[in-house]
């Protein structure tokens, strides 16, 4: 159900570093889907990295500052009240900064000090609402709206929806979740399921929706990440899924990389395809595989989509 049909029609878009590199297919598909749905994305001017997990590990308050700068530009220099971040890491960090600035005076003090020295307005908690690409489509178009626009149903496509860690945990930074009917759940998220079902797909009962892919150590402790990813891939296949739908560039490239690594190092081959949910929605809206960037994925799903009559 579209709860906010007008509010998200035009939002500030924060792609983040990954979407300019390995996650480019996500960037491309998000933009074309927005266009096809009549939603305007205005990129945050001269944005910086949100700090990701790595800066948070060095010092959480520096990460809070980095994220706050992005929100400050969107609010104070561009006049937006909503920032849409498709990357789970960026989304998580902006939400976390919002929480810290609201609840921790020390964080607010550090952010104010750094903002003044850096020469821009200090972000004040509450100036913008940060949303994920899922909220963006779900709240502005909704399942009904999406169903009406489907030109190329994903009928017969069996999908495991994989949300990862950063979209739901820890719960205190997502005050709008777990608010009863219509809201997202932190224990059993369903927004991606809802949208893909509206696009005609068959969602399998996938138990590892919010399991961890080991993205934090994808390179620094690759063996652990490979084991964690293999668990996810195996569980998806055991659930009958042909495709894992992703909503995070780190999860997506982690699944792709460790699918290969599991085969090379552990001799465990899996054939489930890894596709961004925006790519799947794009295909359902009648966009071509190239338009949604399927050729930019490492996991090759073009032939499979063709065999399913989807691409």
């Amino acid at each position, binding site marked *: 159900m579209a709860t906010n049909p007008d509010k998200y029609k035009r939002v500030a878009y924060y792609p983040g570093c990954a979407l300019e*590199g390995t996650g480019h297919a996500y960037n491309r598909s998000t933009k074309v889907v927005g266009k096809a749905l009549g939603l305007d994305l205005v990129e945050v001017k001269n944005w910086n990295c949100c700090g990701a*997990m790595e*800066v948070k590990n060095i010092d959480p308050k*520096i990460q809070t500052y980095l994220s706050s*700068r992005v929100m400050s530009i969107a609010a104070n220099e561009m006049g937006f009240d909503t920032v849409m971040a498709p990357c789970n890491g960026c989304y998580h960090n902006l939400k976390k900064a919002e929480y810290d600035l609201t609840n921790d005076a020390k964080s607010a003090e550090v952010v104010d000090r750094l903002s003044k020295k850096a020469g821009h307005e200090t972000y004040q908690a509450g100036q913008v609402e940060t949303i994920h690409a899922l909220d963006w489509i779900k709240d502005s178009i909704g399942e009904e709206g999406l169903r009406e626009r489907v030109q190329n149903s994903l009928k017969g496509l069996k999908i495991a929806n994989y949300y990862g*860690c950063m979209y739901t945990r*820890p719960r205190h930074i997502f005050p709008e979740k777990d608010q009863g009917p219509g809201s997202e759940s932190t224990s059993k998220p369903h927004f991606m399921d809802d949208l893909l079902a509206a696009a005609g797909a068959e969602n399998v009962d996938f138990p590892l929706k919010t399991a961890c892919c*080991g993205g934090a150590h994808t390179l620094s*402790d690759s063996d652990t990440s490979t084991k964690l990813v293999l668990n996810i891939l195996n569980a998806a296949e055991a659930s009958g899924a042909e495709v894992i739908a992703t909503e995070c560039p780190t999860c997506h490239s982690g699944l792709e990389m460790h699918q290969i690594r599991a085969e090379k*190092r552990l001799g465990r081959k899996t054939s489930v395809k890894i596709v961004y949910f925006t790519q799947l929605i794009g295909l359902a809206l009648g966009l071509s595989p190239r338009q949604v960037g399927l050729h930019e994925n490492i996991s090759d799903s073009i032939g499979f989509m063709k065999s399913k009559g989807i691409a």
Partner: protein
Amino acid sequence: MPIHEQSLIRPENLKTHDELVMDGVDVSGHWSTFIESRVVTDYNEAMQDEIAALPGGEHIHRCWQCGSCTNSCTVNAINPDFNPRYWIYLARMGMESELLRDKDIIWQCVSCNKCTYACPRDVVPEGVMKAMSHWLELKGHTPMSPSMHFDEVFADQVIERGKIEESRVMQRFFKRTGQPLFQDWFVEMVKQMLRHLPVGMLARMGLASVLAPSTSGWSRARDAIREYADEQHGKHRRALGLDNLIETAKQDAGAPARS
């Protein structure tokens, strides 16, 4: 203090005898396993405060040892020795030498935040794991972990330029940790990527890795962040008494030798 899934009894201290007669009674066998006692004398009474002084460790004192963190832990599921609850217990008790037995795996926390989600006391165990890893490194108990190398390479680039470029981070990380870039899986990944020849994407990535993206007008933010980071670093070292040690050592070295 309940110890649920981890015993303070070390396996090597469990003594079972195949043939043992005491006071004329045969006590051989498993049923009469003895525990060799040991005495812990090297408590670090400041340990909890030291970890609480590092980012992420602030709320360690709230823990009431329910074990929700370990129960929900992603890494514990693949390595039972990875036990946040137990480590928080040791840190709070000041049992430094016990914690050091696990010093080489504590950095392996994947930050999935399942523990922080489950914790009824808002201890933020994920943060405590990071604080403990920093503590081990600052104290010189462990060399810098691969994870810390990665964090540094990544953070340096963000602070320097405002943005990161993934292939540069990857190259620098592999170089710093002495790994070859062209590992079997990496070669395969590149091969698969080239299959559909995403020309635009490759050109963009190639260009980015040469030019390195940056946020314009970033220098003031960079200087402000660096100044703050240095300040914090000094604060953390003082909280762990590290600079005092160096001062004392310097004074000792400079003092005239006692005859």
